[in-house]
């Protein structure tokens, strides 16, 4: 496996001029929590690295491998959401004027002390993400069953964080990921059905709440985002077609495999934060840096 990085994020995120630091702290659970995007990424990543009989069981390997790439993008999408939510708590002033004074009353002090008001590789309580969140037993059906459960848990957590904040950036991200999470739930259910003959879609969804109950997910459902599985590759992983086929039980529409990746949105830039000394490059420093960069080119 080799990754090729594209400077896009999964969707265009709204970027209003106000944040909500405590909402950012809650959204951390969707990044570095047990059921966060770092967990889905690393579970599928290690399962794809460790997969036995990649040739014989290729559609299953292709499924876990391609979804790994999508999850990597989700990690950046949730991180970016946290970064945009983190604005507007502190102000620019000399250190003696206590410009970070409001940070004392925010839930995630690491955000102000450790990461200069950006994402943390941890959960909503500041616990670091850990490798023991990865389940890679090597037994195909057991791993698929785990992934099915992991996606349902992730979806439940997203619904709850959605209920905790109405900030437009958080809701847009969660609305989209609820739909994509629904795709992955169905993909693993279908993989399990093919592997075992048992129809897991009969017990879906858990909890019994349709994505359409969420305003910000409805738009993506109507666009058909919930019917598509991407290969995230220029030519590999196409055998997910053998699993992602038939119709979507939630809307009756045909399931589609699309080669490559979605168009995506712009990666937002972040303002400098002098009170955090981040990035800590003043105008004079910058002029000198530019001069050095341009030398001998």
């Amino acid at each position, binding site marked *: 496996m080799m990754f090729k990085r594209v400077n896009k994020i999964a969707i265009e995120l709204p970027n*209003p*001029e*106000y944040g909500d*630091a405590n909402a950012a702290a809650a959204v951390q659970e969707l990044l570095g929590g047990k059921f966060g995007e770092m967990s889905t990424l690393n579970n599928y990543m290690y399962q794809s690295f460790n997969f036995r009989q990649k040739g014989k069981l290729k559609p299953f390997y292709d499924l876990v491998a391609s979804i790994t790439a999508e999850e990597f993008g989700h990690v950046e999408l949730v991180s970016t959401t946290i970064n945009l939510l983190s604005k*507007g*708590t*502190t*102000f*620019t*002033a000399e250190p003696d*004027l206590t410009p970070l004074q*409001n940070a004392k009353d925010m839930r995630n002090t690491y955000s102000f002390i450790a990461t200069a008001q950006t994402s943390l590789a941890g959960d909503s309580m500041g616990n670091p993400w850990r490798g023991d969140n990865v389940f890679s037993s090597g037994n195909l059906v057991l791993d698929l069953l785990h992934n099915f459960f992991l996606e349902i848990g992730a979806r439940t957590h997203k619904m709850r964080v959605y209920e905790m904040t109405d900030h437009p950036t958080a809701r847009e991200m969660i609305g989209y990921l609820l739909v994509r999470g629904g795709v992955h739930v169905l993909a693993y259910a279908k993989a399990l059905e093919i592997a075992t003959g048992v129809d897991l879609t009969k017990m879906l969804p858990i909890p019994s709440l349709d994505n359409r109950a969420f305003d910000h997910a409805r738009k993506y459902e109507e666009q058909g985002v919930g019917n598509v599985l991407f290969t995230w590759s220029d030519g590999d992983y196409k055998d997910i077609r053998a699993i992602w086929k038939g119709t979507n039980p939630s809307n009756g529409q045909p399931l589609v495999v699309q080669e490559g990746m979605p168009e995506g949105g712009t990666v937002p830039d972040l303002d400098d934060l002098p009170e955090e000394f981040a990035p800590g490059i003043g105008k004079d420093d910058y002029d000198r840096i530019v001069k050095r960069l341009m030398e001998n080119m």
Partner: protein
Amino acid sequence: MNGQSQQTVQLTSMYDPYVYQTLSGVVGNNIVVQTIRGSLQGTLTSVLPDHIVIEINKTPFFIRTQQIIWVSPS
């Protein structure tokens, strides 16, 4: 009632009149406003008896005077 004429007494009071006066003098300046929930930093564009308007990246924020703790130039 009781043969007495009814008189309406109307009380008019401004919130924080000196805050209003002081802020009116710095319209157009960059300020930090600490509110009961967080701070805002931007250009003071307007001051009214019960609220002020701060612009951050061309987006107006309307802040109730009663929710302001302190204001400082920035």
